[in-house]
């Protein structure tokens, strides 16, 4: 490998490692209020993880997040960033090291997109060539056209503004990001797109992220770890999404994650993540004896007829196996056809919609690779939570 060209690396800074964040009995009592807004909150966010703070309104999740960059000062306890207390840092200097994105975005309307993104780099005194290169890099990173740089926020769509907000928060490559309902004001379709984009981005940049939302589905989707808070800022449970859904620690958490938690849990895994059954694949015209042999080896009670390219034709009936050779007599079509990339919840939905117990799973070329059954889905729910991917890994 040749040594890196210094001119090329002048712009973007080398990636600093993501920070470890620790809440240590962090407490906030607002003046004039008897009850604390956040009470003795203790949790650790490992470096590179997305920690979602979730809970009903008034649970102190935003307060907890804002204590990290001292937008709200801690009353008692401490918050440690890479082991160092935030209480000892000057607020403005601390905040420049922490990415900050909020629901209302708060872009500066009087500055162009480029100048908005350049806010913190300028505060830190970067030279203009480095800022220019960084702005360009960030616009690419959040999938915005390079021309966007010279436009004003008022000229952008809601989704574009949100992307600029994320780019601005990432400008100096901070080791920690704070995001307060960053996709809350976006319509559902665009929200899902932005969520996926962010997870894809996170897979690349691996920041430590504190993400606040009131939406449990968003929490389950975005979080590597989820902290469920209840009124008064008490931590009800801190766990991975799969663990939270399978083993809610209290009645409150159980209610909060919802009665459909098994379904939500299925949304965390994809068809490719579970052990499929071997399909009894037969071709029309092959000897019935061979077909029966395959059938006896499989857990699936019906043979699945396929064409020359291994594409499914349909489930054969008993009548198809009565002669010497397999006849094209079907009990049902091959539907539903399940994709390896489908999440298990969608696969279950497809099975239910077709009133089927078994679904043929096909690869990208359409060839059958196995069979998914209701039984496998039930089994998947009992997977060790440790083995269920979360956040960016589940994408």
């Amino acid at each position, binding site marked *: 490998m040749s040594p890196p060209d210094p001119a090329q690396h002048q712009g973007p800074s080398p990636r600093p490692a993501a920070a470890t964040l620790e809440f240590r009995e962090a407490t906030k009592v607002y003046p004039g209020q008897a009850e604390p807004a956040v009470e003795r909150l203790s949790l650790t966010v490992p470096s590179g993880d997305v920690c979602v703070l979730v809970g009903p309104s008034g649970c102190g999740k935003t307060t907890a997040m804002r204590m990290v*960059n001292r*937008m709200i000062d801690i009353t008692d306890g401490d918050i440690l960033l890479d082991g160092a207390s935030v209480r000892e840092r000057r*607020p*403005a*200097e*601390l*905040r*420049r*090291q922490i990415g*900050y994105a*909020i629901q*209302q*975005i*708060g*872009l*500066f*309307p*009087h*500055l162009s997109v480029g100048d908005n993104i350049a*806010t*913190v780099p300028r*505060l830190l005194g970067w030279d203009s060539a480095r800022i220019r290169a960084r702005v360009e890099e960030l616009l690419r990173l959040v999938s915005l056209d390079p021309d966007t740089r010279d*436009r*004003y926020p*008022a*000229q*952008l*769509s809601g989704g574009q503004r949100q992307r600029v*907000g994320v780019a*601005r*928060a990432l400008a100096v490559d901070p080791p920690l990001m*704070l995001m307060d309902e960053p996709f809350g004001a976006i319509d559902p379709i665009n929200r899902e797109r932005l969520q996926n984009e962010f997870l894809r981005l996170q897979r690349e940049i691996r920041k430590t992220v504190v993400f606040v939302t009131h939406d449990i589905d968003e929490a389950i989707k975005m979080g590597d770890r989820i902290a469920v808070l209840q009124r008064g800022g008490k931590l009800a449970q801190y766990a991975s999404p799969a663990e939270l859904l399978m083993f809610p620690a209290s009645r409150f958490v159980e209610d909060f994650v919802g009665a459909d938690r098994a379904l939500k849990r299925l949304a965390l895994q994809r068809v490719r993540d579970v052990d499929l059954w071997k399909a009894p694949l037969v071709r029309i015209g092959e000897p019935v004896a061979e077909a029966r042999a395959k059938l006896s080896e499989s857990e699936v009670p019906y043979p699945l007829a396929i064409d020359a390219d291994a594409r499914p034709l349909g489930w054969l009936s008993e009548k198809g196996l009565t002669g010497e050779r397999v006849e094209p007599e079907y009990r049902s079509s091959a539907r539903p056809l399940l994709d390896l990339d489908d999440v298990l919840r969608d696969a279950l939905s497809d099975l239910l919609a077709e009133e089927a117990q078994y679904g043929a799973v096909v690869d990208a070329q359409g060839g059958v690779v196995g069979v998914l059954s209701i039984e496998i889905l039930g089994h998947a729910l009992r997977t060790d939570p440790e083995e269920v991917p979360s956040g960016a890994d589940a994408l």
Partner: protein
Amino acid sequence: MIELLAQVEIRDRSADSCVGDNGFCPDWIVDNFDRYVDPLAEHVLLTVVAVAIGFAISFTLALVAYRRRWLIAPVTQVTGVLYTVPSIAAFFLLLPITGRGFTTAEIALVSYVLLIIFRNVLAGLDNVPAETKDAGRGMGLTARQLLWRVEVPLALPEIMAGLRIAATTTVGLATLAFFAGAGGLGEQIFADITFKSNVVVAGGLAIVLAAALDALILLAQRLVTPWAGAHR
């Protein structure tokens, strides 16, 4: 008082029937336009100095009151009283203290624009969206950086609107400055208030001046707030 209002003969009534009839006489205006140049210059100076000083004072007051909200009520009350004192009365009240002249006129004119500009600056700062300020603070801008880089620029449309009102109002009020012995177009108007040509030219110049200042500030506003017209 009498000497102040004493009519100055500015025309020879015998020469022209139009002039003799107090009419609107283009020929006379062309021949006599020179006599309005100096009063116009005085008028511009009276206005610009008053608005500039008034802006400096009330902008500072507004910045201070923006952070220390308790100051808003007293500042509004004091400048409000100054605003309601009729300017002629102000001129005469000041005469024994500051004497006749430019300073006396300026004190009255400045005290009149304070409330207008103070209120507009404060409204502009207060209208800066909370989330913009929150984002700025959250990114690590200090209070001072936030003020000068975000809040004041975003308040510019209201600030400039205040300046426009202040400038046009001051042009009008400065026509009374001659009561304080500070000259201006008002002196010309009252020099021969029965003569249409005179009143039209002197009064017209005041109107043109007000419109010109207004347009100038509007142009400046367009230049300093290019973002304000940006839409999808």
